[in-house]
């Protein structure tokens, strides 16, 4: 299920109390999704009893954030068949591994982003992903070419 900041915002107190250090609750919702803030930073949500139901819903909603990698990539190994499409399509692999993943073989470099191990894809080196860090690009080619929906991103 895709997470979006609007859904998070709807469950926040919407008082713009600034106790979290953000100017607005909407901005806090964005930071939550980017994992720059934690839900616990919203003090009223935990202190005021009237927000308890909303807080529980939010905790449930934000669970995928914990299993996702730093770039928001989530791999469901139970769905993966190890076809390796994601490994071969990855533009970073093409650049770094022209004799391996770029031409369809398994990666020949030591630190590929993704690699098929024991029949399923595993995340090895997320730091190399184009989605990582400050100058990130919202690349989704691995998800787009996964025939079994084993790869998804937090944003959908």
């Amino acid at each position, binding site marked *: 299920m895709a997470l979006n900041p609007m859904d998070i915002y709807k469950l926040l107190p919407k008082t713009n109390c600034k106790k979290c250090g953000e100017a607005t609750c909407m901005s806090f919702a964005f930071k939550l999704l980017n994992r720059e803030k934690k839900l616990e930073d919203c003090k009223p949500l935990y202190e005021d009893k009237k927000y308890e139901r909303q807080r529980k819903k939010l905790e449930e909603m934000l669970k995928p954030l914990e299993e996702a990698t730093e770039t928001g990539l989530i791999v469901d190994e139970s769905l993966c068949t190890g*076809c*390796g*499409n994601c*490994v071969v399509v990855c533009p970073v692999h093409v650049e770094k591994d022209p004799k391996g993943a770029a031409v369809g073989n398994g990666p020949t470099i030591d630190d590929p982003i993704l690699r098929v191990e024991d*029949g399923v894809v595993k995340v090895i080196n997320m730091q190399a992903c184009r989605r990582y860090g400050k100058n990130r690009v919202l690349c989704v080619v691995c998800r787009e070419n996964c025939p079994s929906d084993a790869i998804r991103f937090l944003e959908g």
Partner: protein
Amino acid sequence: MICPGCSCLCDDVYIKDGRVFNACRRGREIFAKYSENRTVAKVDGKEVDVDIAIEKAVEILKDAKNPAIYGLDTTVVEAQKLAIDVAEKLNGYIDDNSSFCLGELVEAVLKGELPTTTLDEVRDNAYVLVYWGTNPYHSLSRHLSKYTYYPRGKKRPRGYDEDRFLVVVDVRRSETAVLAKKNARFIRVDDDAELVDSFVKVVEGKAAKYAKDVGVVITEMKKADFNVIFGGLGLKYGLKDLNQFKEMVKKLNEVAPVYFIPAGFHGNMRGFNETLFERVGHVNRYSFGDSKSGEEFAFTELLKNEKIDAALIVGTDPVYSLPFEVSSKLGKIKSIVVDPRMSFTARIADVVIPSAISGVEAGGTMVRSDGVRVKLEPLEEKEINDVYILNKIKEGL
């Protein structure tokens, strides 16, 4: 190492620290679980020495009036040759799974009725890739990523991004069809013959049912000097007459070069087809007694019509894979199973001879779906393998 899991025969698989790298889920299971569910030598349900089981097998085959040899698709070419020798000596029947799989398509390729190429050439040169009646997601997991659509090749440096055009023909939106997004076309068909007809008519400039889709595909084909059709079981069973398809490929070649490669079968099914073809000129369901091949000599037909009294089954599990009305007839005849695993057929067989898993415990040659011969690189060499067993049987006769 070479993975013997399917006819892709992937050559970049390796094992390190007990983990299997680069193999798909099916390939991984072969390497990771090869020691599980192993069989032991048995005669009439009692455990015996391997040599005694082989002697008993020879005895059964000698006494049989109409013996058949069946299976052989997961073993190596060297063992297949010996099996053909045994069938010839017995004047019996020989068949493999290709009689209800893609045998017909392989035969057309071997006879030169369909122009063919290799997967390495496809990777380097192919532009339009048509997957017709096959879903490699299930049958050949790494086909698209290793050989066809995704990899970058010499003349196709931008790979699937811009240098390939994917066409998927199927009766439903399969997992492979879902991948047909940019630079691609999914054609849903009710009747394959109508689509074949549409291709022919569009080349001739006539109106046709699928003219819109087919028109796009042919326009793309004309842009390149290398296009391929991969045909699977959907193509074989969707068409009543394969000649129509052969005509279509011929017609397409008038406007653009189009090659054909069968897709989707056991590790060495094409190896069996080629080996038998070299020997007798037919790819499967052959009777040495009648010196001819025919539908009535398919193992399923022989069993169903109770034409055989003994069967030597090598590396396949008909009790599991054939319909009950056919496989139940196995109980009426004498059966010998040569298999590394305790298959369902091994449980009901009169004689069971434990073998080695080709590619893991036994070396040899296998033939990829495009006809390229691949030398296996096993983890170990077991003395008792299919070649040893079939050689002993051959000598014993």
